[in-house]
């Protein structure tokens, strides 16, 4: 019996693969797939009273979502804030990754580790330190007032969408650097020389060769930042104020004080679908545009 099992195991590559996947697969099914399925189901139910949920299937919760402007406004704001977070992160981390990939000759790994050093402290601590930096009596405002550039503290710095964008962009920078660095470092340097040799300036070479070849990294970074930041609710809670509240804060409230699980679930499903479609569209467009450029 054991011998024949061993034989099957040795012969069948598929069985090997499934066995290796099994622990991760179970974890994903238990911790991801089933809660999501439950959320999806709940979104078709109705909250009757505090403790009671009517499980008759209905699409009324989705109707509720689109009929009350507050939900769609918050969804739009979530997507907008995440878009700017992604943009700011890319613009700030791409040059860093580029520098490490092309100009650092020795100890590249050390550079990468040093870049991620600030991220070894807790996420909450970092959000709080941004509060200290951006607050009414924070570092930025006091400094600007001390040198006499402004009379009163700048109001838009804290408890605003700007604050949320800045804080989130900083929080996710380390995750963007890695895929960008890997894709840039992989580029064969002779390709850049070939482009230069064929009459392109360094700037043209960047747009015609380097950037298109780094796209897998760019798309990776976009997805890594955009997808989780849409759902972030800690940062908007702490530095967003009323103006910076996002859909995730509303979902949290619906599952909490507002006590409307089905509507919260419907909002979560809608957010999931929006994020997925945005991610798909971004990937598609980036590919198209980059091919046209070169």
């Amino acid at each position, binding site marked *: 019996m054991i011998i024949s099992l061993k034989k099957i195991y040795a012969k069948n590559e598929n069985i090997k693969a499934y066995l290796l996947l099994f622990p991760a697969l179970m974890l994903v099914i238990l911790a991801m797939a089933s809660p999501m399925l439950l959320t999806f189901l709940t979104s078709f139910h109705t909250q009757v009273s505090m403790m009671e949920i009517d499980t008759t299937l209905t699409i009324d919760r989705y109707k509720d979502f689109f009929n009350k402007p507050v939900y769609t406004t918050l969804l739009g704001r979530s997507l907008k804030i995440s878009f700017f977070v992604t943009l700011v992160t890319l613009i700030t981390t791409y040059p860093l990754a580029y520098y490490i990939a092309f100009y650092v000759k020795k100890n590249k790994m050390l550079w990468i580790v040093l870049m991620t050093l600030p991220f070894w402290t807790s996420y909450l601590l970092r959000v709080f330190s941004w509060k200290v930096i951006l607050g009414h009596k924070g570092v930025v405002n006091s400094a600007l007032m001390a040198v006499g550039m402004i009379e009163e503290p700048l109001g838009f710095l804290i408890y605003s969408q700007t604050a949320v964008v800045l804080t989130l962009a900083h929080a996710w920078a380390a995750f963007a650097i890695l895929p960008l660095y890997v894709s840039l470092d992989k580029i064969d340097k002779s390709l850049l020389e*070939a482009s230069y*040799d064929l*009459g392109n300036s360094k700037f043209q070479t960047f747009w015609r060769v380097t950037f298109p070849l780094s796209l897998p990294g760019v798309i990776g970074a976009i997805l890594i930042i955009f997808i989780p930041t849409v759902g972030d609710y800690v940062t908007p809670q702490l530095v967003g104020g009323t103006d910076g509240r996002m859909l995730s804060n509303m979902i949290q409230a619906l599952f909490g004080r507002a006590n409307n699980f089905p509507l919260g679930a419907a909002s979560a499903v809608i957010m999931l679908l929006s994020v997925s479609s945005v991610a798909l569209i971004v990937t598609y467009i980036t590919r198209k545009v980059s091919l046209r450029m*070169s």
Partner: protein
Amino acid sequence: MSDKEFIKIKNVSKKFDDVVAVDDVNIDIAKGEFFSLLGPSGCGKTTLLRILAGFEYPSFGKVLIDNIDVTDITPNLRPTNMVFQNYAIFPHINVKRNIEFGLRKEKLSREELNQRVNDALKMVQLEGYEDRFSNQLSGGQRQRIALARALVKQPKVLLLDEPLGALDKKLREEMQLELRKLQRSVGITFIFVTHDQEEAMTMSDRVAVMNKGQILQISPPKDLYNNPKNLFVGDFIGQINFLESEVKSVDQQNVKVSIKNLGDYTLTYIDNINQGESIVCAIRPETIQITKNNDQIKSDISVKGKISNTSFYGNMTYVYVEIEGIKKPLMISTSDPLEGLTYNSDCFININLKDIRLIKKN
């Protein structure tokens, strides 16, 4: 300026930190010439080529192409194009767009552009490959596309950095012939870098042999083989025997030389030698004849030896003969079937004085 000085490399040196990669090099290359830079790895040949392309700037000296000083001009503005060692085909665009890549500046119409790409593909015999991507091409095809991409720009000089190195032997030999044919038909000056002496010899009009950053000899292939000017060149190109000798006396035309263990002989004069100087007599293995007895053929030198080894190469055989008092066995190549001449048997080797080249020790 004459066409003989189409490219002028004047006192060019290049230092990387403390390492001298190129050491005071002077070369004139004629228009339409197929010129090779030959040398072992690390001899500075690639650095010199990169200086010509503009990827490196010389620490000292000048480069002139078609009478224009290009020393400080960036690669994108030079009249040179390069075929890279690994071909550097852009992987994100197809063959057609690879070939068009360098033509954007010329503001050609779609039809003209298509025409140029077609002509280029035809030239390298890869018509119909427009839509392929780099990973769908073989090594040889990639190499042709790299050639087409560079030649479509109609450069004054084409620089080739060991472009045949990655191909297998058969294909490499085929490409050597093809490359030479192509160069003749387009009439563009080719500067070809290689460490493979056979490659340099079969294709080039002239070859510059480099070692340790210096040019040792610039000659047409035949001259390089028949009259090596120093020990390195003699040793690097083909097979050769060196015999330790001493200069006995020198006059206007002749040099009397005592070859160690072989006796005194009178040879043709070469420059800058003095009486008493120790010198080397160089003999190519194919000019030495091997016989069973010493009366079979007439020769200037005939010495008895013992066969210490033979190696068979199909069209010829290398025979190593030990001679008393000479440290290294003499190497002899022959196309004769060596009847009766096997390992450990006695034989005679016959050398004619006209086949001996005197080479000064450095």
